[in-house]
């Protein structure tokens, strides 16, 4: 469980972006979380409410967009979405693939701020 340190990272980056945009306070943070990012959405949300107290993010919301794993299948010559994280085979042709195109994201896409 390292969601709390992840949340500290979010707060730091959001603070910088808020200052750069000369905003007053943060209303929402939009986060993209891949299935292979190693963080759990519920734990993030729980840590977020605690860690944002007395920061410009206090009372703001964290909006998490969960992203499935996408691999590139050489056999099918295209990217395919995986239904879970238990196997890294193309769901169409069953060929294993280590070529991951999506799923490791832990990215702040945008913030909504009051100006």
């Amino acid at each position, binding site marked *: *469980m*390292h969601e709390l*340190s*992840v949340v500290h*990272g*979010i707060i*730091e*980056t*959001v603070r910088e*972006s808020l200052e750069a*945009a000369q*905003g007053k306070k943060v*209303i929402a943070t939009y*986060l993209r979380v891949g299935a*292979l*990012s*190693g*963080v759990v959405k519920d734990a993030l949300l729980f840590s977020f409410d605690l860690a944002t107290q007395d920061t410009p993010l206090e009372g703001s919301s964290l909006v998490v967009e969960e992203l499935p794993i996408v691999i590139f299948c050489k056999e099918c010559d295209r990217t395919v979405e995986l239904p879970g*994280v*238990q*196997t*890294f*085979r193309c769901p169409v042709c069953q060929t*294993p*693939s*280590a070529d*991951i195109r999506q799923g490791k*994201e*832990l*990215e*702040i*896409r*945008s*913030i*909504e*701020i*009051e*100006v």
Partner: protein
Amino acid sequence: MAVMTTRVVEVRKNVLNKNDELAREMRKTFESAGVFVLNLVSSPGTGKTMLLEKTLAELRRRGSRVAALVGDLETDNDAKRLAQSGAPVRQIKTDGRCHLEATMIRSHLEGWALDELDFLFVENVGNLVCPAGYDLGEAVRVALLSVTEGEDKPLKYPTMFNSADAAVITKMDLAEACEYDRETALRNIREIRPSIEIIELSAKLGSGMDAWLSFLEDKRKRAGLR
């Protein structure tokens, strides 16, 4: 009454970007110094320290210059154990944190001449979850799995096994007693990380150690380090 004006600002930044940037910088430093860095990850009790004890001693005997950093929440017991090999060893105490970060590696390397090393081993905190997301600037990440842990561990912790470049099965001397199902274990690892290299060994008895040491020397050579 004032009307609240809001706007959306694009950020598009990785949450761990400070760690990632530092790790990238350190990777370049390691490469130009000619030191091959490995990040060893596993559950607590898989045998990382035991494997490292033997590895440091053997590599030194074979003429390589080696050092190790070892991460734990508390105590410097592991560093003391590893220092018996004669190699430079430093303990990183994380004060409760569940993983190592690039900045901890950098601060603990101060004073060491990296260009006088061939291998640097980083023994991560025993944890199959959190260390997965933290790049330490390593050339190779090795995930360890012992025969006592259960063959389905790679399926339970896919993020870690997927992030590894190689896997080591430890405690092979206990395989029979634990009714270790080799075929299932290897299949599960490859289900999560197709085409990964897997080395099976017993650090205690020495079986498989030659393959492991050759793997290390070969990987280092292939990385183009002098």
